[in-house]
């Protein structure tokens, strides 16, 4: 992982300091999902070649989650944002 991630709390760091959390997904809420919706949520990912929103956990740093916009083709990270909650503020 030869790219940098700009941690909102720690600043730019090597990607090796982070744990990848996968694509940002929408969790089915409100009503029971159908089997198709549930299996799609659990087991299917877009896996697009291009920019995507993804979760990163700064395990060797602040121990917080952030969301990065990353181009999966080259690893270039366009932007990062702190994830919500008291932890992320």
């Amino acid at each position, binding site marked *: 992982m*030869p*790219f940098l991630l700009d941690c909102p709390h720690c600043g730019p760091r090597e990607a090796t300091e982070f744990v990848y959390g996968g694509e940002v997904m929408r969790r089915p809420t409100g009503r029971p999902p159908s089997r198709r919706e549930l299996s799609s949520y659990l087991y299917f990912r877009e896996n697009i070649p291009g920019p995507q929103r993804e*979760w990163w956990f700064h395990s060797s740093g602040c121990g*917080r*989650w952030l969301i990065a916009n990353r181009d999966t083709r080259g*690893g270039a990270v366009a932007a990062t944002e702190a*994830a919500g909650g008291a932890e992320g503020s």
Partner: protein
Amino acid sequence: MSARRLPEQPGELIRRGREIGFTFDGTERRGLEGDTIASALAADGQRVLSRSFKYHRPRGLFCCSGQCPNCLVDVDGAPGVRACTEPLREGMEVRHLNAWPSLEFDAMRAVDRVGRPFTPPGFYYKTFMRPRRLWPLYERGIRRVAGLGRLPAEPSERQTRADHRTRHADVLVVGGGRAGLEAAADAAAAGADVVLADDGPVLGGRMLWSGFQAEAAALARHVAELGVEVLSPGSALGWFHGLVPIWQDDVIHRVRAASLVVATGTIPQPLPFRGNDLPGVLLCDGALRLATLYAVAPGTRAVVCTIDDEGIDAAISLAEAGVEVAAIVDSRPAPAGAERLSSGVELIAGSTVLEAHGRAEVRAVSVASVEAGGIPGPTARRIECDLVAVSGGRAPAASLLMQAGARVAYHDATGAFVAADLPPGVRAVGSVRGIEAGERGPVPSVRGDRSGGRCFVCLCEDVTEKDVNAAVAEGFDSIELAKRYLTATMGPCQGRMCQLPSARSIARETGTDPSEIGVTTARPPIAAVPLGLIAGRQHEPGSRSALDAQHRELGGAMDWAGIWRRAYDYGDPGAEALHVHREAGLIDVSPLGKFLVQGPDAAEFLDRVYPNRLSTLDEMRIRYGVLVTEAGRIMDDGTVCRLDHETFYVTTTTGGSAAVLQWLRWWLAEWGMEVRITDLTGTLGAMNLAGPRSRDALAPLTEIDVGGEAFPYLHARTGRVAGVECLVLRLGFVGELGYEIHMPSVHARRLWSTILGTPGPVDVRPAGLEAQRILRLEKQHLIPSQDTDSESTPYGASLPWIVKLDKEQDFLGRWSLEMESDHPGTEKLVGFTAPRDQAAEEGAAVVVDGAPAGRVTSCRVSEVLDRTVGLAWVPPELAQDGAEFGIASNGSILPATVTTEPFYDPEGERQRA
């Protein structure tokens, strides 16, 4: 002083009079401080350093710059070391690699002598195909003969340290020759943070052996004064999206710079003629490095063979250094630089060396005229010599540029491939740009020459001109195909010295131009680097409990449990477990994950992450909890204790704490709730005082009323124990009355010593991890990851009561668990018993009707029950008391009987006492 050592040279790297002793193939040798292994051996008259890869031909120094394969040796048991760049150290044991029984007499040379019919290109593929059943036999033979050197059985000293360092800079300059030094100085003077890497031990590049030693030293000083960080010798290994790893000694510097300046210069190219691999045939650069840097005569009588001015320069320099130059053979009809030559040197213009003669080293050369197109005429004369210095032009060392995304273009004026269209942030300076054209003569060809001598295109893989011709004739006329078929460019030099000759040969054979042939892809690593260095050192830190020293004093057998070192036992785990049942034991449980979950939304948050209800928990009460994934699979377990309305104290397993913290914070980030999670795992120590007499042991030490009614099961209390403020939890993991005491780590020793050391009626003894595992198994308490895997649900693991589907909140895993609850599942986790002497292995197969039907996850002999107990995944129909199944064990089947209730104290009266 050795006879081959020249008089003092300006800028020589050796320290005269400072001798260093080493051995080569067991014989004592001596060199000088500043020597490389190869220069010391050359000074000692050793010309043959290796045997070639395929034909086992004798090979000697050729490039003297760490590029070609000719000087690969084994140093102190580590193979693949380049003798020409490896600094000499006292006591080094150097051995040759690829010859048997000795370097001087190599039995495999017969391959070379017998000749071509047996070694055409693709020999292995064509010969060892049939009969197929004999392949294992062939393979054994091939493996014995192939390869260079043997890996040491034990990791050698060279590989024990390997550090990775990350360095951020404004500018990285790769290459410390004139262009690189000037670029680094300019950037640093402009205020940039600059790193400069050069693969030589001394900065200066070609300045060092071309009369500019003083200028090189001055530039190097200037750069250092400007604050440039110099990595020397430091080799760039590749380009990875802007990250350039530089290998220096036993460190890999991961340099990330906003700008990359590539000043890697050029690589001198060989010329094709028969016997162009004989010891004594050197590149002009190699001969000059040897003579000027190490003051070693590369030979006594030289013939220089060239197509450009570089040969003329080399002849002048060699003569100045004290080497007799018999003749210069130049392919140009009227070389412009000729007037610079002194009168004693004969210039043979419009000619080339047709063949180098000699068996173990060069003795003479045949010279012939060169016709148009580089075709040589018949031999005109023979010149006695023991050194042939060759200059076949230069190729830009553009690997790094090409990896960074530059396009490769053929440059007609220089007859070489250059990098074009550099990507943003990458610049090339100096001769690596490949556009400094001088007068060039034709590159001679040996085509049409029918004599038997070998003319090598690729020294690493022993590929000859005729092999290339044969490959093209067989249809491998693209450079990528020919590369794979011939393995040319795939050896230790990675194409540096054979890429261009291969392209030239294929172009000639196919009647095209090298520009149409192109080059093969440049891949990392650019320099040969030990794999151990890339792997780096193990950096996973081991964690130790605050009681580590106590465990060792007590004779504890320390063992890894995740990242923790834990006391496995103190001599007899069975007896330790029995003592917990009969009296009282003290178990260090400090490695448990311990988190404080606080905030107005804390109760709501826990209700959402756990499948059971925690918001209904009263203050100072405890509930067991299992964490499941969104797929409803068991992830971890532990206890949750409500300290006050907004504060919960959550424990996890030792191995799962990091993953649980990550998991909880992830959902917190997703939901954005008013909750704060604090990791107290290292801050707090914990110990479990358990056993029927634990109350009697604790009572005199604490202000807390530990009476059965005042402090019941699954309740928590705070207060002083042995003078230390503690949180005490009444839990039952080990099945006896017990108190899990949590305290600041700094006080753990005091508490531990006090509890164990207080004289009194209760004999409290330490119990280890293994005793705890026996005790929990007697209660059928599962351990996530030990007894569960990525497919285990709470229903399968016989914990249906932990899932509250009637909960109003949506919780993690709810949708999956709802679907699971409708299905019986394919297997269930059950307890089983077996006779005492028939303990099964963990992981053993459960056998039903002669077929595998499940597996054993835990199995121990219980002293208190006097039989074997365990947990196993079995088909659902066997999940009832009294069902019987078999367990495969060493070829026999052990009988086992299902028990769904805890084996020990099934009513739980003892832990609730």
